[in-house]
């Protein structure tokens, strides 16, 4: 069999005898031709060119068919040659203005045929082609459209029944190829042969079909298909099998009300009440609904979900007073799906005045005030001490004291210069000093306090005797220290201090050792010492005499020291105590200790007499 090439067969229809047709595996019907363009080369002329598809391995012939829009009749291309290969040429005989022409090309071979997509050509005014006056060229008098498309395949989205009595289906609109598309829904009942069309396209919204009670049967399978149609063609969806029994999804419950009530034990609780959705027939038992609640404080993030069962009310305890709560409810059919959540309901809980809390605070307040009072009272008792603790005592004037180390070292001059004293009597003056001391005591004793003699002489004697029992010299030398010790021990206030007693003991003690010296001493300068009006002095003896002692002050000590030492210088020789020679260092120490002791005692605020 001869096989002509594709190019050769373009402008002619070649007749191929059928008996010569042999089956070859690689042969197939022709591919779809495509109209490339339509163009007006001259005025009132139109030419269209197409591109052939695959020829399927066989001789293929092409036919161009055109028709006017609105008219049924199709015409064949009048001229296949003038415009060249794969073309069709129209002149004004065939083309009228103001009409849309639909042009298609058909490819035919032994195996079959194929038609191109339709090409629209609108014949506008057929005018003269204008010469090129500018870059703008008005060439085409014929405006051609791109070909329209049949619609895509529709798809069913879902079907739902809110109350197990009616149901609705929704589908997804498809690409319509730029043309208006019509949708039709067909269904077939299980057990029935015929297909029916959707009874209601509007009630459920756009792209939907609503089946009312009459058209709804349970426990049967519906075979549903959707057909999309436009001018260019139609398309049918895949079949969708629906049993209304299993697509139940109710509407949300309604009338959710929140109210605060008081329980029998006085506790507040939230009572939640709602009703089943209006369409659902729960009363007859046709539909059985179960409910679920959710609650959260307004500011909260997480919902608390509570499954309630078939009741339509619920009590909520353990809510936070003062908070604002949001609540929602939803329901589901016994074997179906959950509805959407209902609209939000709000409630604002009042802040609770709890008697318990107040009692606790009152108790705490009372307890703390009691503790405070106790503390203040205790402070009051201790009085000065606490005040002293809180407010530090005013420091007394600082006086350079006797430097113990210097005294020990025997550097008496340095010591006294630190004190401000002038000179320092040699240790051999110890005795004189003591004698002076004794003399003073005598005079004072007689002048001032005769009454006290009787008071405690025995006592002091005894104590004094203990120390002075041994040697005479020792007793007299030791007397200042003796007095000092006693002073420290007894801590007798000035008024009570037995000045005459001490003096007596001193006198007596000294008297045991050497009476001679006693007799001589009153004549010495020491009365001057007395006349100084010493309010307080380093010599306990002199203090004994003075009733002004309590008002001691530190500068007096220094004065006394000075006077004492100067007296010592003068009258040192008058005092001859045997033991003193043996204990010169001791004597100097005694003076030192007296001076120091007074000062330290003063520092302590105690008056040693």
């Amino acid at each position, binding site marked *: 069999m001869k096989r002509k090439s594709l190019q050769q067969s373009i402008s002619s229809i070649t007749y191929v005898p059928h008996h010569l047709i042999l089956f070859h595996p690689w042969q197939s019907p022709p591919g779809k031709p495509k109209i490339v363009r339509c163009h007006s080369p001259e005025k009132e002329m139109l030419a269209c060119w197409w591109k052939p598809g695959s020829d399927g391995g066989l001789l293929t012939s092409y036919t161009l068919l055109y028709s006017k829009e609105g008219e049924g009749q199709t015409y064949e291309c009048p001229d296949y040659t003038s415009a060249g290969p794969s073309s069709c040429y129209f002149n004004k005989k065939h083309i009228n203005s103001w009409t849309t022409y639909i042009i298609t090309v058909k490819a035919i071979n032994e195996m079959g045929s194929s038609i191109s997509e339709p090409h629209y050509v609108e014949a506008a005014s057929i005018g003269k082609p204008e010469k090129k006056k500018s870059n703008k060229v008005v060439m085409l008098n014929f405006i051609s459209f791109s070909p329209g498309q049949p619609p895509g395949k529709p798809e069913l989205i879902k079907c739902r029944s809110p109350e197990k009595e009616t149901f609705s289906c929704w589908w997804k609109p498809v690409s319509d190829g730029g043309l208006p598309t019509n949708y039709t829904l067909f269904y077939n009942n299980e*057990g029935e042969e015929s297909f029916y069309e959707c009874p209601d396209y509007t009630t459920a919204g756009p792209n939907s079909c609503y089946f009312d009670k009459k058209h709804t049967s349970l426990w049967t399978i519906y075979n549903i298909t959707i057909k999309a149609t436009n001018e260019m063609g139609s398309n049918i969806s895949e079949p969708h099998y629906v049993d209304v029994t299993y697509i139940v999804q109710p509407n949300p419950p309604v009338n959710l009300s929140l109210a605060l009530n008081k329980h029998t034990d006085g506790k507040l609780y939230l009572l939640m009440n709602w009703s089943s959705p209006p369409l659902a027939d729960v*009363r007859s038992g*046709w539909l059985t609904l179960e409910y679920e609640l959710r609650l959260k404080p307004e500011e909260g993030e997480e919902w608390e979900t509570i499954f309630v069962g078939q009741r339509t009310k619920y009590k909520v305890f353990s809510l936070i007073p003062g908070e604002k709560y949001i609540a929602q409810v939803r329901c589901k059919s016994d074997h179906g799906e959950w509805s959407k959540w209902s609209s939000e309901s709000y409630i604002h809980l009042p802040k609770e005045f709890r008697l318990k809390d107040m009692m606790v605070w009152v108790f705490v307040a009372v307890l703390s005030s009691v503790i405070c009072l106790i503390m203040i009272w205790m402070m009051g008792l201790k009085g000065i001490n606490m005040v002293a603790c809180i407010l530090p005592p005013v420091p007394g004037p600082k006086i350079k004291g006797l430097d113990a180390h210097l005294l020990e070292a025997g550097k008496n001059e340095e010591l006294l210069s630190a004190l401000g004293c002038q000179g320092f009597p040699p240790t051999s003056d110890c005795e004189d000093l003591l004698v002076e001391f004794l003399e003073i005591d005598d005079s004072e004793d007689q002048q001032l306090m005769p009454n006290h003699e009787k008071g405690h002489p025995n006592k002091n004697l005894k104590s004094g005797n203990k120390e002075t029992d041994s040697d005479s010299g020792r007793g007299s030398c030791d007397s200042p220290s003796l007095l000092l010790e006693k002073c420290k021990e007894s801590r007798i206030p000035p008024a009570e201090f037995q000045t005459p007693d001490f003096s007596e003991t001193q006198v007596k003690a000294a008297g045991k050792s050497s009476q001679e010296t006693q007799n001589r001493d009153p004549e010495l300068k020491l009365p001057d010492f007395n006349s100084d009006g010493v309010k307080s002095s380093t010599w306990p003896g002199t203090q004994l005499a003075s009733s002004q002692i309590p008002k001691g002050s530190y500068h007096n000590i220094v004065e006394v020291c000075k006077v004492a030492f100067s007296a010592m210088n003068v009258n040192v020789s008058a005092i001859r105590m045997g033991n003193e020679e043996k204990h010169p260092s001791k004597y100097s120490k005694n003076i030192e200790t007296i001076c120091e002791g007074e000062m330290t005692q003063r520092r302590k605020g105690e008056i040693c007499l």
Partner: protein
Amino acid sequence: LICSCQRRACQVSLGDLFDRAVKLSHYIHSLSSEMFNEFDERYAQGRGFITKAINSCHTSSLTTPEDKEQAQQIHHEDLLNLVMGVLNSWNDPLLHLVSEVQTIKEAPDTILWKAVEIEEQNKRLLEGMEKIVGRLHPGGLGNELYSRWSGLPSLQLPDEDSRLFAFYNLLHCLRRDSHKIDNYLKLLKCRLIHDSNC
């Protein structure tokens, strides 16, 4: 259930009997539904079984109400009769389902024990319904309805595909009928016990 002694005999109240029956029917349908879904997912994907499972249930010979209006119009005696008929018609298939489902290749345990459970609970439900019928209609319901099941051979087919479809069909019908029974009983309970005011 609480026994209240009335009329010289200790009787459970009718309300309690219905409560129990409804609980059982609800439970049986839940199991059937789960079992069907599991089987469908595992064995029926892409086989187009549903297109063939049309009008294929053995109980379809029993005319049962198909919507609310029909169900509310039917007399409770007739409805009870229908319920008993459906339940009785499933006795046999359920027995065979238990034995045959084990022969399915790699049948998951969940499907196996569900089949056993459904068969057992169905028997209990039948007993309970007989009590209710005896209470309401001591003389019996009269015309006893029954649909014979002849699907056993198809469950034993050598061709795997055909056999699987037979199971699919049976489970599909079981799911549907158990839902019917559950719905009818809930309807009857509200009507008879709560005077249509549930």
